[in-house]
């Protein structure tokens, strides 16, 4: 169990580093676009596409990381008041909804979208990147959310006899 938890922690650390690098790349990319606009007669068209794709990746992978750190906005006025059994039920129900969303929409729907666009050989306008590869962040993010939900459930049960943190 503890190795599973440790591995999940390491995965999240790696995602965190990747996200920071993507963000730095995003700033450099768009700044370069401004530079080319003023120096070259025609602004580069590929920087815009790179930036858009980076944003989708940052958005979805970051959303998974934010999910793990419980940063997404929610309404906790009712769940805060719950205690004992009903609190456990509510917490597990939330995990279930998140996991179902991740599996159904992000993993199955996302993967199907990836396969469809790859099959149609749909490519981006100026870089010619296969759109299927851009959409790959959907199932990836879904996989992470499932993984993090698993971690939360394990933590939930292993901390059961102790007062819970956070």
């Amino acid at each position, binding site marked *: 169990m503890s190795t599973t938890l440790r591995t999940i922690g390491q995965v999240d650390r790696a995602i*965190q580093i990747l*996200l*920071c690098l*993507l*963000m*730095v790349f*995003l*700033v450099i990319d*768009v*700044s370069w*676009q*401004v530079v080319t*606009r003023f120096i070259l007669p025609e602004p580069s068209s590929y920087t*815009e596409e790179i*930036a*858009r*794709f980076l*944003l*989708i990746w*940052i*958005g*979805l*992978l*970051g*959303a998974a*990381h*934010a*999910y793990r*750190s419980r*940063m*997404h*906005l*929610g*309404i*906790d*006025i*009712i*769940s805060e008041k719950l205690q004992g059994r009903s609190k456990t039920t*509510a917490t597990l*129900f*939330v995990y279930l*909804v*998140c996991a*179902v*969303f991740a599996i*159904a*929409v*992000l993993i*199955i*729907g*996302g993967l*199907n*979208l990836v396969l*469809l666009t790859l099959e149609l050989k749909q490519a981006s306008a100026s870089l010619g990147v296969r759109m299927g590869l*851009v*959409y790959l962040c*959907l199932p990836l993010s879904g996989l992470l959310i499932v993984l993090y939900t698993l971690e939360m459930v394990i933590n939930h049960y292993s901390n059961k006899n102790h007062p819970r943190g956070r």
Partner: protein
Amino acid sequence: MDISVLVLVITFVVLLLVNVPIAIAIAAATLVTMLLTVDALPAVTTIAQRMSAGMDSFALLAIPFFILSGYLMGQGGIAKRLIEFARVIVGRLPGGLAFVNVIACALFGSISGSAVAATSAIGGFMIPAMEKEGYDREFSTAVTVTASTTGLLIPPSNILIIFSLASGGVSIAALFIAGYLPGLLVAGSLMIVCGIYAKKRGYPVGEKIPLSEALSKMLGAIPSLFLIFLVIGGIIGGYFTPTEAGAIAVLYSLLLSMCLYREIKPRDLPDILQKSVTTTSIVMLLIGASAAMSWLLSYENIPQMISASILGLTNEKILILLLVNLILLAVGTFMDMTPAVLIFTPILMPIMDSLGISPLHFGIIMILNLSIGLCTPPVGSVLFVGCSIGKTRITSVIKPLMPLYFAMFGALALVTAFPSISEALPRALGLY
């Protein structure tokens, strides 16, 4: 059609109440509703596709940049200098520090795009400073929370970018300029209330600042204030797009806080990047999920249905505007701003069109309404952040918030009744 609306609303509300993250609740409610009429695989694929399409826009890219530059400004000494600048100007008035707070929030709003950033950057300095001079913590928090929403109207503004997207491409430059007067109007109304409150409570006048010190503080703020000209001037003058202006704002605030003010060290950067990425992705997931729900609504012809039923009630422009204000206030109380704009703009826009209300005017009305919602429980992200920074409880901030809500309602009434408050500046600049 009616059944699907019912299913959508009920699923969404139930999921929200058990504390499912809002973005996931939106997507899940959309999925459940779609499953009534569509097979499972096409349904999940459509939602995945709509989510990624909703996030795929060059205009949206301004958001991570303004978020990142907001963090840089807060930590890098820019926020501090704006406060000093405001203190020199209004610190000597009765209730001076409350005025300083409002003006600093408005100034911060004019270089950054988000109210939460303003709350944490300005509130982090101002709430303790006000407490030290004898203001009570709850009042100081309430002032910070309401004043920081002026940044949503005063450009650059992330939410106006999202509105531009939701409304089908109203010019971002025109929206930005349209926000100036309404934003200042809100700031002014808040200051009136602060003045009355301070007089009643006998809050102190700020310390006198020697002329030489005042001058050096004004000078120190100039590089920070220059950002306004750089960002807004660049956008209005057509030198760069809002997204590019965002990237410039990041580079400029990085340069300022690392080289000139020297308050950010290279080792602080990973943490700042990390925070910006997380904030960005929270907004992006909301955008993706809302785009999916908004698509479903238009697929089910909901906007037409609602506009027909509202226009069937009355044709009186004032009554409809009043009704729309009430709807938006209610929505803002229970929903975060980003999904509210993305979901309700396509629904209400046709009504506004048929009444001849310009998208600029409507956009400002909408953002001002939802700004009030950001300061009210149960869903009020600015209020939450403000209370955690001010280390007070939401229930105890409500009382000092009341007169400030009143000020915001006053500004809302004026903005609703007089379109020219929103339209005059963009028209004068030839943007509209």
